[in-house]
């Protein structure tokens, strides 16, 4: 078989495994890990469009996640609408926010852009935490019991698993389509060298803004999915720095700027995080920071390209064999 056949067989196997997982998961605990993996993969894939492909490392994507998480519960709390109706509103608001903060922050490069995004996200978290309309520090709650299927409130997590899997497939398909189009090439060119890209006619600011808007809207979608499942959001779980950092870590671990990197990163990080938390019991969230910090150090020191880059380098060590395959 050629390497292309192997790749196709591997992909088919991975898809089959993802589809069959809820049937194999022996307990709600394992099913919950599966759902959390998919959610992390969706949000990190959304982040990856701006941070991975266009090279603008946002550490404030929690602001878009939070907008997406709040809107469904806000329309439910204010008007009794099904939370689902808040999803497009959240995505639209995230695009608006992206346009507003993108204009000034995308002028900054490298670390300065990252720091500006942290500052904006923290500012929004604090503002939301003091704003009574959106529940201030207490947050918002969804319908306790479903009024109908449209509330998307299920006791079992299996429906969420398949909804999230479908959305992830959509996000990956969109990313793949983007990679083959002019905007995708322009984003990679801006990342690789902004001055050179501009000399070839690439309008770099417009390219970065487009990447930010697309990335923000999909991150908001991830936030909405999260809140449909949990039925609850507060400033920390929506806009907290941990939300922003997780997207960066998941994508960087698997390989930022690659199509499947965020999914691979989520498949490794989320179970590791979950097991580490259950071993050490109550003090879990503190340990999460330690785990994230450790991964940042390891990835930055040994393999800034993530696991996908590592794999590529290992394949290059034995080019004869891979060519013969």
């Amino acid at each position, binding site marked *: 078989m050629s390497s292309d056949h192997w790749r196709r067989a591997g992909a088919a196997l991975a898809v089959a495994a993802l589809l069959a997982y809820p049937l194999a998961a022996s307990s709600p605990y394992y099913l919950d890990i599966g759902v959390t993996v998919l959610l992390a993969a969706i949000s990190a894939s959304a982040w990856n469009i701006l941070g991975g492909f266009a090279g603008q490392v946002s550490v404030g994507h929690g602001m878009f996640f939070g907008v997406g998480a709040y809107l469904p519960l806000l329309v439910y709390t204010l008007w009794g609408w099904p939370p689902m109706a808040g999803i497009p509103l959240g995505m639209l608001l995230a695009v608006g926010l992206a346009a507003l903060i993108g204009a000034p922050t995308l002028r900054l490069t490298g670390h300065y852009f990252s720091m500006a995004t942290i500052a904006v996200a923290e500012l929004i978290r604090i503002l939301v935490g003091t704003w009574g309309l959106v529940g201030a520090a207490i947050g918002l709650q969804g319908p306790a019991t479903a009024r109908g299927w449209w509330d998307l409130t299920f006791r079992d997590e299996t429906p969420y698993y398949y909804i999230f899997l479908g959305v992830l497939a959509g996000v990956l398909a969109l990313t793949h389509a983007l990679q083959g189009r002019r905007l995708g090439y322009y984003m990679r060119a801006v990342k690789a060298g902004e001055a*050179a890209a501009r000399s070839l006619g690439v309008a770099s600011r417009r390219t970065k803004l487009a990447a930010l808007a697309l990335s923000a809207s999909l991150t908001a979608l991830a936030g909405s999915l999260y809140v449909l499942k949990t039925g609850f959001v507060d400033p920390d779980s929506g806009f907290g720095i941990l939300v922003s950092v997780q997207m960066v870590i998941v994508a960087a671990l698997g390989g930022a700027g690659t199509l499947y990197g965020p999914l691979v990163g989520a498949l490794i990080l989320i179970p590791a995080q979950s097991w580490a938390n259950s071993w050490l019991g109550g003090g879990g969230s503190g340990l999460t920071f330690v785990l994230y910090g450790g991964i940042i150090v390891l990835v930055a020191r040994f393999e800034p390209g993530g696991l996908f880059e590592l794999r590529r380098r290992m394949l290059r060590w034995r080019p004869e064999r891979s060519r013969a395959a």
Partner: protein
Amino acid sequence: MLLDARGVTKLFGGFRAVAGADLAVADGEIVGLIGPNGAGKSTFFRCLAGDLVPSAGRVVFDGDDLTRASPEAHARAGIGRTFQVPATFADMTVLENVMVGAFLHHPGAREARARAREVLDLTGLAPLAGQRAGALGTPGRKRLEIARALATAPRLLLLDECLAGLTPVELRDAIDLVRKIHRLGVTLVIVEHVMEVIVTLAQRVLVFNEGHVIATGAPREVVADPAVIEAYLGRGYRERTDPAP
């Protein structure tokens, strides 16, 4: 005139890197900009490419005033350029690098890829199409920069020391490529401090020294100009070669 730059001045703080330089380039010409290190030719070049906005003066290209236009507007107007230190997109393949240029006039990926392949054939890079640009050596990267700029279909190509640091064989290949591009109808402005190269390529040269154009004319005449010899080699050299009668 295709390119008409008048009184271009660039100040960095109190330092006058370029002091009122003029350059008029006709369609189809090859013009060389030479001068010792620090003479201001690269700063002048960057003003022409839209990298820097001149402190004074005007740059008009094909009737359009581009003095304050962005680098991408220069590309759209029909000015291509290379960088002194090659700035190829390291993580993209050679073909993808050229496609980024081709997208300027071919928004569809299929057309851009086809156009990029034509340019790779022309520049002799076709065998390397699938390689990562970062894996190329310096001569390959310089050639790729030219190919990438060429894919934007420029009427004027600005080359910044694209021939420096090449071995004699590489140099001959590069000169052949520049001649080939010129035959396609592309006008060229070449910055170089290697005098021999310019003398064989350019129809006309401008010599920069201390921010001023100190000589202009056919290469053979210019290299014999006492002011040029002095700028390059210092006053002592001139006195030795030009003994008092």
